[in-house]
């Protein structure tokens, strides 16, 4: 349903004109190309099949929103031998057809706050030449939850309810492809859970969903995911495939004085990487060192009650590894 090949997008910051002031920002930015322009997308390639939930996992500034805006025909990509189609329609040439068949939910709540819930929904239905009644079955599950508040102004809704309304508005014309740009950012855990349940149902109905998120725990709910950083896709696979292809020795380290412990781990010669993961540290180590040897070493440095356990990698570990590789590759 979505085919993207070698997509590039460069934003001109206006700083790089004739190399005059380009040095300041362009060189400091790790994905700038030296003359002050920012490369938001740097050769993105992927493919999403019908009915899949494809997650794009990446931190802020990875280029997720830029990708979404190109695919929803709001933004033109750089010219060149690239390709981006949605349901077979080219995002540059066939933008009219694309606008008929997609639903888009931008990262920020952007419905009319001074219109009521029902008015917003009717409004977007009318823009697509349809009615709420005609497509009520599509939005029933979501809209049903906020329908008791249909006369309330959208601006007066809670965060979770706003998301549900925004999703209802994006679905009211029965799109075949749904673009959700960080739909759960700033939403409480219960509402996030409900939201993903709704997405599962939509995908069962055959709607293709492209969703971006900065929450690694949501990655497991996607059919396939792409890890994105610095305008590039570092890996694309099923969540299971991503974690299975993780080939490092991964240990979790817990103990007292966690910040000092992290610093100590990082200088150990057998430790490749060490990152803080909530209440423990995830450490990758070279072959040849044992759990006991590392614990002894730490005890010798004055860290008591250190617990070290080998663990299964998560998507977040895979992400950290991939982004370290990208960084090292750049150097």
């Amino acid at each position: 349903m979505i085919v993207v090949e070698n997509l590039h997008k460069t934003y001109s910051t206006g700083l790089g004109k004739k190399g005059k002031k380009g040095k300041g920002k362009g060189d400091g930015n790790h994905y700038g190309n030296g003359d002050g322009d920012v490369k938001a997308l740097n050769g993105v390639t992927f493919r999403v099949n019908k009915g899949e939930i494809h997650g794009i996992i990446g931190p802020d500034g990875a280029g997720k929103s830029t990708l979404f805006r190109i695919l929803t025909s709001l933004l033109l990509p750089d010219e060149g031998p690239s390709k981006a189609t949605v349901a077979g329609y080219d995002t540059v040439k066939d933008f009219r057809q694309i606008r008929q068949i997609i639903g888009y939910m931008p990262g920020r709540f952007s419905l009319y706050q001074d219109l009521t819930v029902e008015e917003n929904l009717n409004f977007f239905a009318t823009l697509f030449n349809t009615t709420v009644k005609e497509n009520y079955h599509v939005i029933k599950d979501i809209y049903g939850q906020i329908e008791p508040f249909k006369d309330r102004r959208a601006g007066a809704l809670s965060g979770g309810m706003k998301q549900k309304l925004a999703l209802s508005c994006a679905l009211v014309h029965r799109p075949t492809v749904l673009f959700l740009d960080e739909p759960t950012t700033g939403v409480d855990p219960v509402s996030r859970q409900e939201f993903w349940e709704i997405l599962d149902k939509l995908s069962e109905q055959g709607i293709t969903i492209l969703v971006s998120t900065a929450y690694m725990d949501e990655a497991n709910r996607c059919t396939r995911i792409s890890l994105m950083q610095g305008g590039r896709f570092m890996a694309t696979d099923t969540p299971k495939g991503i974690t299975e292809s993780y080939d490092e020795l991964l240990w979790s380290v817990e103990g007292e004085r966690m910040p000092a412990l992290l610093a100590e781990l990082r200088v150990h010669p057998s430790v490749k990487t060490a990152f803080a993961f909530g209440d423990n540290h995830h450490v990758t180590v070279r072959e040849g060192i044992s759990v006991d040897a590392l614990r002894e070493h730490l005890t010798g440095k004055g860290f008591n009650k250190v617990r070290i356990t080998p663990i299964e990698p998560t998507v977040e570990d895979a992400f950290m590894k991939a982004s370290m590789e990208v960084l090292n590759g750049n150097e």
Partner: protein
Amino acid sequence: MKVLKFLIEKEFKQMFRNPLIANLIVFFPTMVLLVFPWTITFEVNNIRVDVVDHGKGSYARRLTDKVEASPYFILNDTPPDYETAMQAMERGEIDMIVEIPHTFDRDIVKQQSSRVGLAVNSVNGSVGLLGSNYMIQIVNDLSKELANELLHKTSHAKIQALPSLPRLTIEQRYRFNPQMDYKLFMIPGFFVIILTILCGILPALNIVLEKENGTIHQINVTPVQKAWFILAKLIPYWTIGLIAFIIAISVAYLIYGLWPAGSIFTVLFSGIVFIISVSGMGIIISNYSETLQQAAFLVIFFILIIILLSGMFTPISSMPVWAQAIASINPFTYLTSTLRMVYLNGSSLADVSTNLLMLALFSLLLNGWAVLSYKKRG
């Protein structure tokens, strides 16, 4: 068409849920017309004068009385010497000093002439110029009176002996605005300001607000045509502009008795053509700004140029050539001139057709530019 109707409906809903906008339609034209015409006047009144009378003779007294009786002057004080009066002027208490020499009465009787000293604070140029002119008129008046009186006192024979003096008098008649009332002259200009703000600036800010809120992206991913979207933004503001225009015309009639000497339909028709052109200008501003702050700055910049270079306050013919060139591509200029012609001169539709043609041309150019520069994608 159904989409357009729904888009317009949405705009009206939002408009009336915003109490500020709803009130603006009625109060804005009313307040502008109730307050501003009184403040913007080129007449100079209430000039504060000190008269320093050294001689205190009866003729000097009559001059002082004449100053006091004049509607233009307020007799502030009669200090004993020039220095005291000068200090008062330096403190900003008075605008003008009239100094009457102690030989005033004697000179008039003996030599049939005398001199009066006049010192005017010209920091404010128009007070300086007009004030001294008014004062010269008063002094001339008095000298004419005194000449007549002296003539009566001389014997009949002597008058016969005098060579007959040719006399020229100018009789002034002000056409179209016989009382030279500046209010009547300015009010049509205020109509134009009201229309510019309601139909040019408000829709521009409204569109930029949709950009800031991100709602415009939601519209842009739908199949809605951009012309529909813009039209749906403008039609509500055209409507309220027209309502406000009618309110303004009524207020001008009820408060100032000002009704067009020409046809009211010519007035309304010209207003509509102007509304369309100025709203195009607003859309252009909104297309080139991403935030309300940028739009507000552009609006303030352009509104100053538009109003000052329109001939509303100062005649275009006395501006430098480059300013005249700007004024000639300013829609404001043409409606101000049209409304003044229809209201005061009683011009017909045919008389103002050149102005209307220019306005129609602006409407086409500005709106064409507005639609072309509105981009649904970046």
